[in-house]
C-alpha cells in the first residue's frame, strides 16, 4: 500500500487524497490483525507509519484546499447524476479538523507505548487494531458528503470506542462502556431515523443534493417530516457529543477507561460530533433553514448555557482529576453548540465554534495526557493525591499548566481566542446569557485549576504511599516509573502544549481559513 503510494505520480496522488486518508489506517489495522498477534513488536511501528501517512495526506489536503479550493471525490467514479454514488468532500470547514485528528492520533500513539511483556499487554494487537479503526471512522465521518455514509462511519467509530473503553481490566470501565453502548446506539438510531425521514421527502442521501432540493423546493423544506428529520438528527448527534441533558454516559466512560484510550477519545469523539452537527446545519439543511425560526435557536442557546453552567458546577464537585476534566468537556460542548446556534449576522459564533473544535481538541488532549501521566507514573487519580507532584515531574507540570491556562482562557493560548470569538458572536447576537455563562465558566475553571496548582506545587507530602490506595481499581496501579520510558508521555504532552500556544498565536490565520467556506456558501454571502 505505502510502497505504491510513493511510486505513483504526484498529480494522481493529489486526486486520491480523500481515499488514502481512510485507507492508510484501514490497511494498517488489517496488517496488525494479520501479523500482530504473532509478534507484538510490529504493532506500534505499523500504527505510527499509517498515522504518519494520514498526517501527510491531511496536510497535503489542507494545502490543496487553500490553494485550489474544495476537493470533491466520487467513489467508484459515480458522479452523474449526483447522488447515485458516494461523495467525499474536503473543504475549509473540515480540513483543519482532519489535520487535528491526525496530529492527536499520532501524539497519542506515542503515549500508548507499553513495554512488551508487561502486565496486560497481551491484547496489544487488539488495542492497536481498534485504535486505527477508530481513526478510520473519524476521518471517514469528517470527509463524508453523504448522509448515510456518515452513519456507517459513526458506527465504525462508536463500536471501536466501546471496545477501547471496556478494554481495561477495571469493572467500572466495562460497566461505563455498557452504558455508553446503550446511549450510543440510541444516538445512532436517532440519526438514522432522521436520515430516513429526510430520504422519504427528498429521495436522495447526498448532502449537496439534499440542500439543493430544500432550498429550491419550499414546500418540501416547510414540511413536517423534514423538521422532524432535523430534530432527530440533532438529538442523535447531541447524544454522541454529550450535550447537557444527554451527557450521562461520558464522565464514567472517559475516566474509567485505559489512559491511552481516554487520551484518544476525549479530544476527538465529542469534537467530531460537534463538527457533524455544524456540517449538517451548514451543508445539509442550510443555515437559512436552520435559523428560520429564532425561537428554536434561542432554545438551543439556552440549553447550551445550562450545559456550560452545569458542566462547570459539576466539575467543581469532583474529587478525581479525570472526572473533573470530563465535566469540563460537557461544559466545552456547551460552548461549541451554543456558538454554532448564536445566529449572529457575521457568523462569528459559528466561526468561534469551529475554531474552538481545534482549540478544545488540543486543550483536552493536553490535560488528559497530563492526567494520564500522573495516573500511570504516580498512581495519582484524586486531586488531593497530586501533592508535590509538580516537583517530581516538572515537564509534565509545564504541560498541565499550559493546558489549564488555555482552559481558563489566558492569552496567548488558543482558549483565550476561541472564547473571544464566541463572546463576540454572543454580543452581536444579543445573547447576553451566553456571554455571562462563558465568563462564569472561565471563572470556575480558574478556581478549579488554581486549586490544583496549589495542591500540586505547594503540597509537600511525598508521592509515595499513594500507589496502594487503589486496590479496588486494578486498571492502572502505579508502575515504577522506570518501566515505561518517561518521554513517551512527556514528548506528546509538550508538543500539545506548543500546539496550544501556536494555535493561539496564529488564530487570525486559522480563523481566516475557517471563514473561507462560510464566504463560499452562496446564500451566506449576503449575511457576511
Amino acid at each position, binding site marked *: 500500500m505505502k510502497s505504491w503510494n510513493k511510486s505513483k505520480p504526484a498529480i494522481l496522488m493529489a486526486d486520491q487524497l480523500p481515499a488514502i486518508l481512510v485507507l492508510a489506517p484501514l490497511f494498517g489495522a*488489517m496488517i496488525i490483525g494479520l501479523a500482530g498477534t504473532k509478534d507484538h513488536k510490529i504493532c506500534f511501528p505499523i500504527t505510527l507509519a499509517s498515522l504518519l501517512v494520514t498526517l501527510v495526506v491531511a496536510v497535503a489536503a489542507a494545502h490543496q484546499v487553500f490553494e485550489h479550493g474544495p476537493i470533491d471525490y466520487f467513489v467508484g*467514479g459515480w458522479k452523474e447524476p449526483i447522488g447515485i454514488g458516494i461523495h467525499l468532500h474536503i473543504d475549509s470547514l473540515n480540513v483543519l479538523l482532519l489535520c487535528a485528528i491526525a496530529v492527536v492520533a499520532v501524539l497519542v500513539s506515542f503515549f500508548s507505548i507499553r513495554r512488551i511483556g508487561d502486565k496486560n499487554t497481551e491484547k496489544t494487537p487488539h488495542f492497536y487494531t481498534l485504535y486505527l479503526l477508530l481513526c478510520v471512522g473519524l476521518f471517514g465521518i469528517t470527509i463524508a458528503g453523504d448522509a448515510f455514509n456518515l452513519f456507517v462511519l459513526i458506527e*465504525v467509530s462508536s463500536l471501536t470506542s466501546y471496545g477501547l473503553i471496556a478494554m481495561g481490566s477495571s469493572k467500572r470501565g466495562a460497566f461505563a462502556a455498557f452504558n455508553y453502548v446503550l446511549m450510543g446506539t440510541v444516538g445512532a438510531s436517532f440519526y438514522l431515523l432522521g436520515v430516513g425521514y429526510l430520504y422519504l421527502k427528498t*429521495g436522495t442521501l447526498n448532502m449537496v*443534493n439534499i440542500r439543493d*432540493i430544500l432550498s*429550491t423546493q419550499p414546500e418540501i423544506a416547510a414540511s413536517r417530516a423534514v423538521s*422532524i428529520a432535523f430534530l432527530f438528527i440533532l438529538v442523535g448527534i447531541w447524544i454522541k457529543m454529550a450535550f447537557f441533558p444527554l451527557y450521562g454516559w461520558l464522565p464514567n466512560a472517559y475516566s474509567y477507561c485505559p489512559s491511552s484510550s481516554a487520551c484518544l477519545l476525549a479530544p476527538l469523539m465529542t469534537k467530531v460530533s460537534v463538527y457533524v452537527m455544524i456540517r449538517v446545519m451548514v451543508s445539509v439543511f442550510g443555515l437559512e433553514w436552520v435559523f428560520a425560526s429564532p425561537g428554536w435557536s434561542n432554545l438551543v442557546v439556552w440549553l447550551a448555557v445550562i450545559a456550560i453552567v452545569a458542566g462547570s458546577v459539576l466539575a467543581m464537585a469532583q474529587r478525581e482529576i479525570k472526572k473533573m476534566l470530563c465535566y469540563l468537556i460537557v461544559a466545552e460542548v456547551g460552548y461549541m453548540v451554543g456558538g454554532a446556534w448564536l445566529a449572529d449576522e457575521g457568523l462569528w459564533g459559528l466561526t468561534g465554534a469551529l475554531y474552538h473544535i481545534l482549540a478544545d481538541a488540543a486543550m483536552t488532549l493536553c490535560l488528559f495526557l497530563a492526567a494520564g501521566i500522573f495516573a500511570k507514573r504516580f498512581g495519582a487519580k484524586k486531586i488531593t493525591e497530586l501533592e508535590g507532584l509538580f516537583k517530581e515531574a516538572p515537564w509534565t507540570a509545564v504541560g498541565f499548566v499550559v493546558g489549564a491556562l488555555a482552559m481558563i482562557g489566558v492569552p496567548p493560548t488558543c482558549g483565550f481566542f476561541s472564547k473571544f470569538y464566541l463572546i463576540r458572536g454572543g454580543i452581536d447576537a444579543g445573547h447576553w446569557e451566553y456571554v455571562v455563562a462563558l465568563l462564569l465558566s472561565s471563572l470556575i475553571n480558574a478556581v478549579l485549576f488554581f486549586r490544583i496548582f496549589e495542591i500540586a506545587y505547594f503540597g509537600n507530602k511525598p508521592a509515595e504511599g499513594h500507589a496502594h490506595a487503589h486496590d479496588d481499581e486494578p486498571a492502572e496501579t502505579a508502575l515504577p516509573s522506570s518501566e515505561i520510558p518517561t518521554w513517551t508521555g512527556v514528548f506528546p504532552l509538550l508538543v500539545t502544549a506548543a500546539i496550544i500556544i501556536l494555535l493561539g498565536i496564529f488564530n487570525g490565520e486559522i480563523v481566516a481559513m475557517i471563514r473561507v467556506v462560510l464566504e463560499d456558501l452562496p446564500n451566506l454571502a449576503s449575511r457576511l
Partner: protein
Amino acid sequence: MLSKVFATIAVVITGGILLYGVSDFPGFGDPHSPANAGVPGQASISQYFITESYGDTKVPNIVTSVLADYRGYDTMFETVVIFAAGMAIFAILRVVGDDSERKPRRKQESSFTNGDHSRIIIGTTCRLLVPVIQLFALYVIAHGHHSPGGGFQGGVILAASFIIIALAENLNSALKRLSETNYLKIACIGILIYAGFGVMCQVLESDFLDYGVLQPILMTDGPEMARSHSMLGVEIGVAFTVTAIMFAIYANLSSRGLLRDGL
C-alpha cells in the same frame, strides 16, 4: 420505578413525534413519492438505478449493484463495522496468556463415542446437515449478484454451519476446523480483498472502487462485465469477514473468552 416513569414519558414523546411525522409521508407504495420518482426538477436516483444499473454493471439484481458498486464504499465500511464489533468483543472477552486456564475443565471426549445416545442422533443429523448448509451458503454468496443473497447473508449461513458443529459436539471440534488464528486471519483477509479491489482500481489510475478499469486484469469483454465480476469478488471478501467474525463472536461469547468447552 421513577426511572421507568421517565423512560415511558420519553418513549411516548419520541413515538408521538415520529407518528406526527408519519402523517406527512407520501402514500405507501406511491409511485410518485420523492424516493421513487425524485422531486420535480431533479433526476430521480431510483429511476436511474432501475433503468441504467443493468447497462452499467450487467448485474440483474439491482440491490446488489447498488450495494456493491454504486454504494460499495458504504458496504466496505459495513464490513469494517462487523470486523470492529468482533475485534471489540475479542478485546473485552478473550482471556489470553493464562496457562492454567488453558487446561480443559473436563475430559474431552467425542460425543459420538461416549455412549450418549441422544447426542448420537443430534451429531449424525448435524453431520448430514452441515455439508448441505455450507453448499447453500456458497450458492448464496456466488449467486448474490443474480438473485437475493450476497456476502453478508452467505457468510452468516456459512458461520451457522460451524456454530451448529459447536452446538452438536463441542466448541473444540468446531475450533479444530476453524481455529482462532485462522478466523482472525480470514476476517482480515476478507476486508483486504474488498479494499484490495478498490486499491487495484487506484493503481490502474482511476477512483477507489471504480471496478470498470479492472477489465484488463479480469479479462472480461467490456468494463460492465468487469464490474459484475468485481462485485462477486467483493462479495466473497465480505463473506470471508462475516463468516469468521460471526463464528468467532459465538465462540468467545459461549465460552466466556476461554475458547474451550463452550455451551
